[in-house]
């Protein structure tokens, strides 16, 4: 069976629901949305396979399927700045954490001291979840390297 790109899209969209993968539940009456713009024309071991609709679905018919407007990113705002000098470095960041017009936190630090380095401070703005993950990962990687060298650099 040849699958087009749009065929794969609709197949995945429906096959993601758990009850769809059981062979006993292969009845079009149990598929309220699919009967609107899909027709079953084959059954594979993984469940029913749908043909792509003959015409491209409009935006309205797409929104009738289970589509959720999830975005993995948020822009939590904030500003960071740093200035290097001959024997010092000054790094600054505001402490506001926002999302849209909401302030989520007034005391959320954007500065992060990297303890396994020689006096390094990481200043990060952007998406707070990604910043947290990046800080954690960087800390772990630096710790592993310091253990590997049998020296704790500070």
């Amino acid at each position, binding site marked *: 069976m040849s699958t087009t790109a749009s065929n794969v899209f609709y197949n995945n969209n429906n096959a993601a629901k758990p009850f769809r993968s059981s062979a006993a539940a292969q009845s079009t009456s149990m598929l309220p949305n699919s009967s609107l713009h899909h027709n079953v024309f084959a059954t594979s071991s993984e469940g029913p396979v749908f043909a792509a609709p003959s015409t491209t679905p409009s935006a309205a018919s797409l929104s009738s399927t289970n589509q959720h407007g999830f975005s993995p990113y948020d822009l939590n705002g904030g500003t960071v*700045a740093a200035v290097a*000098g001959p024997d*010092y470095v000054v*790094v600054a960041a505001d402490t506001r954490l926002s999302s849209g017009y909401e302030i989520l936190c007034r005391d959320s630090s954007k500065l992060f001291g990297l303890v396994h380095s*020689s006096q390094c401070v990481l200043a990060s703005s952007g998406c707070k979840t990604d910043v947290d993950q990046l800080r954690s990962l960087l800390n772990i990687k630096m710790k592993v390297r310091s253990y590997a060298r049998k020296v704790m650099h500070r």
Partner: protein
Amino acid sequence: MPSDSVAQLLSNTLYYKRFFPYYAFNILAGMDANGAGAVYSYDAIGSFERTAYSANGSGQAYIIPVLDNVIGNRNRTDDDNGNKSGVPVTLSADEVVEILKDTFLSAGERDIYTGDAVEIMVVTQDSIVTHRFALKAD
């Protein structure tokens, strides 16, 4: 780990997620092997550069022009102020702290995502001193 190694490690860590990037704009500040201050500026996918000064985030557009003028000695009308244009001036850490307070105060007036407080760390070879300066909470 020396700061240049940390800088490269951060770059590689960011680039590893090149096709689903960390939505994070980083500045790494540290001391280099010669005991001088080092600032590394990054984009979200790990491209980085060592610079004399840098700013990132929502208020970047308000901070950078001031730092260009006051620290970077760029775009000035007083050509004969004793410094060559474009060559960063040497200030004391205390002077830089005061300049950064002013720039964050100004950015906080214009950028709704900047405010509440500014945390300023002064890093030297053997100490890190943190200052805190309140900004408007509106």
